[in-house]
């Protein structure tokens, strides 16, 4: 598949450095599952980090650090099995361990499924599913919104977005995505701030959608 839309370089660097907030980290990791270009660049950056790590002058740990670790090794529990969420393919392994809410109807042809993050994050993460032909509400953002397509496709003023594509919306962007014909479009969305729905329907929906 051809991926046309990628996260910004800044975002990939922050991912590799470990400084993205949890919600954005999930969105970028989801994109990298299918994007060889971004995942290749991120591993190169991780090698840059490793190279810098190896060149650091070592610092002294506590005297008994090695003994404490050796002591721990014998008492290690087996790796946890745990339930893995797997009914939506394309999510990174670590996200599948998070708690998923129920699919909830949020509008004609549109369902939303929240993902509970294990940490406080200024970014909320959810799956959004819309049937072909759905014209999503005209909306703008008070802050950053990252979307990664898992299946299906949509199109808006910014172009065509199919599986793996990464869309970035901010306060300057006002767009109205249209779900392409074919299959349901499922996206992972990481959203900061509030969503502003415009138009009469938007205002009626707002209290209900509570985004």
């Amino acid at each position, binding site marked *: 598949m051809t991926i046309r839309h990628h996260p910004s370089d800044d975002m990939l660097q922050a991912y590799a450095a470990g400084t993205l907030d949890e919600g954005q980290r999930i969105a970028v990791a989801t994109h990298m599952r299918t994007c060889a270009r971004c995942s290749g660049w991120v591993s190169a950056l991780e090698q840059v980090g490793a190279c810098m*790590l190896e060149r650091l002058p070592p*610092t002294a740990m506590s005297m008994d650090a090695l003994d404490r*670790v050796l002591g721990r090794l014998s008492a290690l529990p087996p790796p946890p099995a745990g339930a893995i969420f797997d009914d939506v393919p394309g999510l990174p392994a670590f996200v599948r361990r998070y708690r998923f809410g129920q699919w909830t109807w949020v509008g004609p042809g549109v369902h939303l499924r929240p993902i509970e993050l294990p940490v406080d994050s200024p970014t909320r993460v959810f799956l959004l599913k819309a049937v072909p032909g759905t014209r999503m509400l005209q909306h703008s953002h008070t802050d950053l919104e990252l979307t990664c397509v898992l299946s299906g496709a949509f199109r808006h003023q910014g172009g065509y977005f199919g599986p793996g594509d990464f869309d970035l919306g901010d306060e300057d962007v006002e767009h109205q995505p249209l779900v392409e014909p074919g299959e349901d479009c499922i996206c992972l969305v990481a959203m900061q701030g509030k969503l502003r729905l415009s138009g009469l329907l938007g205002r009626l929906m707002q209290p209900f959608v509570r985004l």
Partner: protein
Amino acid sequence: MVVLVAERRDRAAFARLFDYYAPRVHAYLLRLRLDPVAADEITQEVMTTLWQKAALFDRSKSSVATWLFRIARNRRIDAHRREREEPPIDGAILDIPDPAQMPDDKVNAAQRDLMVRSALDLLPAEQLELVRLAFFEGFSHSEIADMTGVPLGTVKSRLRLAFSRLRRALDDGGLDR
């Protein structure tokens, strides 16, 4: 060495890895402004993870240092979580990269390491220093401007230049498409 740890559960080999890498992982965590006790604790966890996950380590795909860098970075994300007394959500799972996240086999890990090293060495000193502060030590651009006395706009443009040089160097070497 990691192979010995993985296949024979060789504690002597593990201790040698520990002696070399743990003080460097510790130094990295101190650079990220963790206090020495927390840095010590997280380093121990990182090395424990190496023991636990040794069997998943594939040296054709990644060097030990890159693997440890990734584990240390993820463990630190987990540690933030604990500070707020939230239960860690199986942070161990974070350390296994998804298959798609692995670079292709065009060049092996050792060759790639060499390429990264020489790409870094070819950067002008002031750009390398900025990459170190911004990317490795996690300072914001404005913090770096304050620390170094370099104007914010210059910090940003030098960083952009440095990363695009790196990207070009590593792209040319077949690191990514």
